[in-house]
């Protein structure tokens, strides 16, 4: 059986068409973005928000808004809303790709060590008084380095054992977790320690257009790589032996997908801190909608992830007068949702690769 026919078989076996779902989710996302711009602590009505945004395209002759209102819409809310969309899409796509690649429902960017590695890089940067692009670069490099170490530890004779990968991820995460604790111990308790603690909890509060551009430059190509690998991920999800027999370049695909997910996760951690559970939970929900074919699963995951992250960020910035770090909310929601999904999967006979 050729690889093309194998992909067709996977698609046929789960013959649901994802197009309507993708269209509906896309429409929901667009509506949610518009609604999100109108909500926040600063009171602004929908029409005024629309007029402020439209003013960028067709300058209004009688602007009836203040500088403060324009700043709220264009400098405070819009960049973080777009960042939430990008972060949610990236993390969900990473989780979906990794779960398929390693045929394991528990694999996500946290498990493979990239998050804690990038987290350590970021805390080290804050401790050293490095912020801005310096912080992004250091977090990013540590994230990539940690995933490379995990892959090397888990690979033997050109093959990567899923169990070894998860264990290597746990080891590296534990190592960087301890390293983060040391950095916190050394940090000035009045200035740097609160900054480190808050940054680690994940937040989109201070996202500006520069951060957004940086994230997009890093994450969009990585997302494209993952999407281009969708058929290869389908084949590898049947098992490495079968994939090799079908002529799939398993090691190359694994490195490419791991590299792309590492780039996305490190980019997210570097810009926004640690935001967990999105890459673990969203692909499961998406799989229930689209089935396991990654040609459908990835677009659905991307849209669902964006919607989810946007909702979480809306909660984070509106529930109290202070910002609630989004990492806290994604964990609070993610854990029970994942527990329910786990129970349902077990009642249906477990994950297909068990």
């Amino acid at each position: 059986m050729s690889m093309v026919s194998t992909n067709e078989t996977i698609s046929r076996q789960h013959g649901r068409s994802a197009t309507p779902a993708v269209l509906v989710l896309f429409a929901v996302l667009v509506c949610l973005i518009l609604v999100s711009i109108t909500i926040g602590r600063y009171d602004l009505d929908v029409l005024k928000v629309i007029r402020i945004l439209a003013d960028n395209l067709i300058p209004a002759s009688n602007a009836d808004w203040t500088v403060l209102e324009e700043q709220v819409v264009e400098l405070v809310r819009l960049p973080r809303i777009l960042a939430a969309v990008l972060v949610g899409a990236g993390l969900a796509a990473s989780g979906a790709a990794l779960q398929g690649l390693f045929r394991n429902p528990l694999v996500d960017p946290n498990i493979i060590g990239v998050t804690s590695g990038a987290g350590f890089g970021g805390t080290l940067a804050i401790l050293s008084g490095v912020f801005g692009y310096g912080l992004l670069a250091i977090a990013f490099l540590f994230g990539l380095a940690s995933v490379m170490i995990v892959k090397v530890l888990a690979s033997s004779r050109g093959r990567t054992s899923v169990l070894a990968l998860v264990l290597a991820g746990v080891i590296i995460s534990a190592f960087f977790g301890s390293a983060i604790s040391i950095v916190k111990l050394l940090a000035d308790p009045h200035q740097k320690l609160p900054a480190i603690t808050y940054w680690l909890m994940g937040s989109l509060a201070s996202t500006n257009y520069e951060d957004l551009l940086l994230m997009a430059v890093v994450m969009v190509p990585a997302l494209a790589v993952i999407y281009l690998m969708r058929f290869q991920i389908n084949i590898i999800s049947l098992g490495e032996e079968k994939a090799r027999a079908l002529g799939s370049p398993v090691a190359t695909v694994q490195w490419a997908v791991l590299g792309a997910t590492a780039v996305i996760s490190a980019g997210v951690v570097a810009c926004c801190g640690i935001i967990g559970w999105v890459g673990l939970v969203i692909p499961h929900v998406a799989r229930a909608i689209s089935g396991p074919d990654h040609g459908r699963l990835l677009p659905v995951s991307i849209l669902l992830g964006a919607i989810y992250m946007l909702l979480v960020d809306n909660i984070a910035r509106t529930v109290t007068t202070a910002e609630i770090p989004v990492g806290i909310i994604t964990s609070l929601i993610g854990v029970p949702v994942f527990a329910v999904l786990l129970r349902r999967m077990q009642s249906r006979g477990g994950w297909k690769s068990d």
Partner: protein
Amino acid sequence: MKTVVFTGLAAMLAVSVAHAADKPISFEDHRGQKIELAAPPERIATIIRAAPFIYYSADRTTDHMVAVNADSIARMKNFVYADLIPELLELDGAAARDGFAPNVEAILATNPQLVIQAMHNPDLIEPLERVGLKVAAWGCCSEQQRLDYITMSGIISGHPERAEATLKLHYDSNAAMKAKFGELADDKKVSLVYIEKLGDQIQVVANPSQDFSLSGIKNLAADDSGEWWKNVDVEQLFTWNPDMIIIPAQAVALNPSDFYAHPLLSGMDAVKNKRVYKVPKFNASPDSPELFLSAVWLAMVAHPEMGPIDQDFRKTVRDAYVTIYGREPDDALVNRILELEANSQAPGYAALFK
């Protein structure tokens, strides 16, 4: 700066000290526990950060403070005390590293006759009393408790008259301010927000034990939660849009120029009108005995329409330091205390205080 030589004769002073040294000490601490000593202690340890300069104001020497909180020395480096009473920086910081957890063995090694400790957690006092140390507990953080610190320091050091002189300054100044602003209508009060950190989260002072009504001011961030600080997001700040923004003196790294250069804040009234002020160094700690000067300063910057509230505030500041600490700050130090450089962009500031 020069050490003030009191007009009293040296012989009379010697008699007075001898008299104080012989007198038994008895007072109730904030637990209601009676503390008795045969004479003013010659060896005293303290873990409360503000205690070194409060106790100095009564004792006028650092010879009797054998161990203090290392964090209080670090903080005093940024306060006026580093210039005014530099010997405070030479104290032994072995009593605690930061926070209130005592280093019991280090304190024991200094063999103190009395330890001044915070009482918000019984576990902070019990380890000291378990090894036989006598502990005076200071509660926090009502205005009365802060005034009690001064009273207790006067009694412990054997110089209650110095504490009384400091308290008289406090009461007289506040009474004068109350007479001037006590009946000011709410709509005539100037609104402010006290901002201590300007980052991902904006940390505002919600509950300072400072009566803003004495200065004809209302703190928009004030609440009754009892929490000293609270975190808000930038939209909440826009919603308040106060007339003035005040930066506490202890926020060493934050200055009005940070607000004027901030890309999101240019639409706020306080920023547009250059009414962002760094509070003078006499407000560096909420426990400072000279804190009452803040009410006068605040009224002067908030209500320029009322004319000079204090005709020669610089002299008032100098006299206060002489009365409280027995040290007179020179002109350059008064400039630094009043933050003339940091507040130079505020209209009329130099004319008011130069």
